[in-house]
């Protein structure tokens, strides 16, 4: 940056004024130099004439009276002027009646050696040709008689010297005036222009930093109007920024700080706690089954519940604590200055209790549960991201632990999380790398133990971890959406194998395929119809196992899909009946063909009375609704006998057959075909090809 760029407005203005004044002064000086000598010379001549005339007027009487002393006095008075070299009164004959010579004048001094005799006339003759001398002559007349002449010699040199001195004085005075004017202008400019502008600049910077100090308006001039306009603008900016700040940092529904502000406050808390070596706690709160509230009571009630929950949480916290809504049904509570885990635990319990208190929303009593993940700074992370991720992780662990749980984060959670993430990545490539394999677990008639079909099971042959159970990776695939591709692959493999076996004369029976709720959202029925058409699969060959969770989703869409599937002739099985909601209304609303009793109920048969009661009740209900029932996990003969006795139609389990790969199942089918060949009547449930 150059010097010019560093100059302030005041300095530039003053410099400009100074340059103008100096130029003016210089021009004036040059003009004075050019004109003053001539002007002063003219003035000098005029003065000499005036003096000469005066002498001419007063001298006749003295000449007539031969008053030489008086004449001397006259000439002395005239010659007392610094620039007068001589004043001489000559008689008509040319002799001097009075003479005054300035003998220290340079013009005279130069001739003094030659005029040692003080001969005035001789000196006058020598000075006749002197260009530096102005010579004036005036007649002295009385009654028309010329009594003499008055001669005056004026030195130009003295005149020039006087002019220069006068010019120097003038320049000095002008310099002082210029400096004074510059200073005065600078001060006036500084106080009247610069200071208000600097105040505006400072205020503008404050506004830029979000501080809204107004500018003091001291005058009604243009700057004053500018200051007023600035103040009005700053006020508008302040209002707008407040609005934007609120929109950016606060949740519009609950009025609580939003995620952005929550992160900012956590950042601040980290900074503060690091400085004073204090702990703080974060509580990551997620309402359990909030979706069901929305679905069953409507979004308006759901919103009311969120608002009420936020207010209730805020009600039990201190002013220094922060409760924020992160989005959806997620809340975050920041509690600074937490001494230890017990204190955090106590707070978590209060949160759980407060949230669990019933609400009356739109005239209905609503009870919300929550899961809370707890992290402590600095033990559970020293960055915002780490703390949030760990709290989220802990919350998921709490959710897995059951409703109304609050769990502190542990490093083990992270380990599991990392494993899960790794699995997600591996899962992403498993399909392309051909690591998946379909297994088949045969399903038998409970009474006759004849083979009826098989449940298609998916295995993941991980190159490092070996075979991974679907119960491990299916939830991950559902959470990541990979289940769509995987499910489609399973469905195609099922159709492909069934068609292949059918072509070679096997009787694979029906193949039961588990359908994820995620697949249902992707127009599953259309895709199934395509595959059935492609591979020539009759609808009786497939049974779709649907968990109760599917039915929790959007009812209309689910109903449409189920109706489409039924229209296609595909059997529908309600899987894991009894472990979920087990709402009988589902059975009434959606038409199923088969109920599958979860292995957890079968395990206690026939010893456990509760399991016995439940299984009996399911069988009775299925019988009433005309549904087949498949008992899963039959591992002992007693279980099989009991189920058969109670009228359970189908069974699967290790007692009957373990899951087997394609080749093994094909071998199983070969054995079955051979046995059927030797058995009159053959397989009871022989699937007939359509058409």
């Amino acid at each position, binding site marked *: 940056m150059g010097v010019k760029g560093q100059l302030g407005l005041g300095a530039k203005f003053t410099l400009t004024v100074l340059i103008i004044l100096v130029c003016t002064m210089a021009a004036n000086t040059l003009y004075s130099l050019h004109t003053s000598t001539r002007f002063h010379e003219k003035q000098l001549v005029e003065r000499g004439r005036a003096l000469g005339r005066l002498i001419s007027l007063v001298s006749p009487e*003295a000449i007539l*009276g*031969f*008053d*030489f*002393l*008086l004449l*001397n006095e006259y000439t002395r008075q005239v010659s007392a002027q610094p620039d007068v070299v001589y004043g001489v009164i000559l*008689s008509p004959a040319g*002799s*001097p*009646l009075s003479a005054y010579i300035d003998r220290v004048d340079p013009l005279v001094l130069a001739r003094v050696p030659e005029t040692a005799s*003080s001969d005035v006339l001789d000196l006058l003759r020598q000075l006749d040709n002197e260009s530096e001398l102005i010579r004036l002559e005036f007649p002295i007349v009385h009654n028309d008689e010329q009594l003499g002449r008055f001669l005056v010699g004026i030195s130009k040199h003295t005149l020039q010297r006087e002019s220069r001195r006068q010019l120097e004085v003038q320049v000095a005075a002008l310099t002082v005036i210029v400096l004074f004017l510059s200073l005065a202008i600078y001060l006036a400019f500084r106080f009247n222009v610069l200071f208000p502008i600097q105040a505006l600049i400072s205020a503008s910077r404050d506004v830029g930093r979000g501080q809204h100090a107004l500018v003091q308006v001291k005058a009604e001039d243009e700057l004053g109007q500018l200051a007023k306009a600035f103040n009005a603008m700053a006020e508008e900016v302040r209002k707008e920024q407040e609005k934007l700040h609120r929109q950016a940092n606060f949740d519009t529904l609950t009025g609580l700080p939003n995620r952005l502000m929550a992160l900012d406050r956590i950042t601040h808390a980290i900074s503060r706690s690091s400085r004073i070596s204090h702990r703080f706690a974060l509580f990551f709160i997620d309402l359990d089954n909030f979706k069901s509230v929305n679905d069953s009571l409507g979004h308006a009630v759901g919103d009311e519940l969120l608002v009420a929950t936020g207010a209730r949480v805020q009600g039990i916290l201190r002013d220094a604590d922060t409760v924020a809504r992160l989005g959806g049904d997620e809340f975050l509570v920041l509690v600074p200055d937490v001494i230890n885990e017990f204190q955090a635990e106590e707070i978590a319990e209060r949160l759980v209790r407060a949230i669990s208190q019933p609400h009356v929303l739109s005239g209905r009593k609503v009870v919300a549960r929550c899961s809370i993940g707890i992290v402590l700074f600095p033990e559970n992370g020293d960055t915002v991201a780490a703390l949030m991720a760990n709290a989220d992780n802990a919350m998921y662990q709490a959710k897995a632990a059951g409703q109304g749980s609050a769990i502190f984060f542990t490093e083990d959670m992270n380990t599991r999380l990392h494993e899960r993430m790794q699995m997600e990545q591996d899962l992403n490539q498993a399909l392309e790398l051909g690591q998946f394999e379909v297994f088949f677990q045969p399903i038998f008639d409970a009474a006759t133990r004849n083979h009826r079909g098989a449940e298609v099971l998916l295995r993941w042959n991980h190159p490092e971890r070996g075979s991974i159970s679907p119960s491990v990776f299916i939830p991950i695939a559902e959470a990541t959406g990979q289940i769509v591709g995987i499910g489609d692959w399973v469905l195609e493999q099922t159709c492909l194998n069934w068609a292949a076996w059918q072509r070679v004369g096997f009787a694979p029976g029906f193949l039961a395929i588990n359908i994820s709720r995620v697949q249902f959202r992707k127009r599953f029925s259309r895709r199934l119809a395509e595959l059935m058409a492609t591979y020539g699969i009759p609808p009786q060959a497939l049974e779709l196992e649907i968990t109760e969770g599917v039915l929790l989703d959007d009812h209309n869409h689910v109903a449409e899909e189920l109706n489409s599937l039924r229209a296609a002739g595909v059997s529908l099985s309600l899987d894991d009946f009894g472990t979920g909601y087990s709402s009988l209304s589902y059975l009434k609303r959606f038409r199923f063909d088969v109920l599958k009793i979860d292995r957890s109920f079968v395990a206690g048969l026939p010893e456990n009375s509760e399991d016995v009661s439940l299984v009996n009740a399911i069988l009775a209900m299925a019988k009433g609704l005309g549904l087949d029932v498949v008992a899963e996990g039959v591992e002992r003969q007693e279980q099989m006998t009991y189920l058969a006795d109670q009228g359970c139609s189908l069974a699967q389990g290790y007692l009957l057959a373990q899951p087997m790969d394609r080749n093994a199942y094909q071998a199983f089918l070969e054995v079955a075909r051979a046995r059927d060949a030797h058995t009159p009547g053959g397989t009871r449930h022989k699937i007939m090809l359509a058409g």
Partner: protein
Amino acid sequence: MAVVFCLLLPFFALGAKSVVAADAPPLVLGVFPRLHASETTTRYGPMAEYLSERLGRKVVLVASRDFDAFWVGVEQARFDIVLYNQFHYIRSSNTYQVIAHNKEFGKSTLAGALYVRKDSNITSVGQLRGRTVLFGGGEDAMIGYIAPMYLLMKAGLTRSDINARFAVNPLNSVIGVHRKQADAAGSGDGAVEQPALQKVVNVDELTVLAVSDQLLHLPWAVRRTMAPGLRERIQSVLIDLDAGERGRQVLKAAVLTGIGKAEDKDYNPHRKMVRAVIGSQQIKP
């Protein structure tokens, strides 16, 4: 007259401040106007004040505008004390009585003289015949005209034998000769010694052609009707001026070195010259 009155005013005022224990009217001091009135006042004001103090009676100085006005005052005896030319005294001696005379440059007398330039080649008075002679003062100037003219007459020349011109005072007549405005100058014998002259001309270029007899200097006279006691007191005060510091200051202001005693017969030589030059009718008995 009005001018005289105006010139008197400051002295009236001055007199009013001066405490003089006398009921008598003030004495009037007249000084002949050979100088400007202001210069006359400067020189002789202290003298009047001194006289007032010593006489116990107010003395008022009158500086006349010109000789005519002064001479009217003399002729009408308006002055109680008067300082004037020797010729004036001679003319007014029937009314005034001389009591003292000036001493200038330490001398009680002076003589008339004729000056010429050294380069004029004039070495005798007779050579002035037909020449221009510049006299100092008018025809009533004792030293500037009467005495030099007496020297010319002694050389056999009359007024008509010369071209007589008059300068305003004796010094100017000498300057005029030096500046070649005349062939000779009538002046006092001490003219060339005067600093005022030496400042303006080179006196070495001048020479004295002739000198008259010594004549007593300017007279101080009082009205003859004045009481003898007062006259003597005035005379005593004047001639004793150089006896004290105060008196010497008065003398210095008047550019005098002293005042000497004089009586009427001391001016007979003057009467002789006047009678020769101007005629007997100008001389009162």
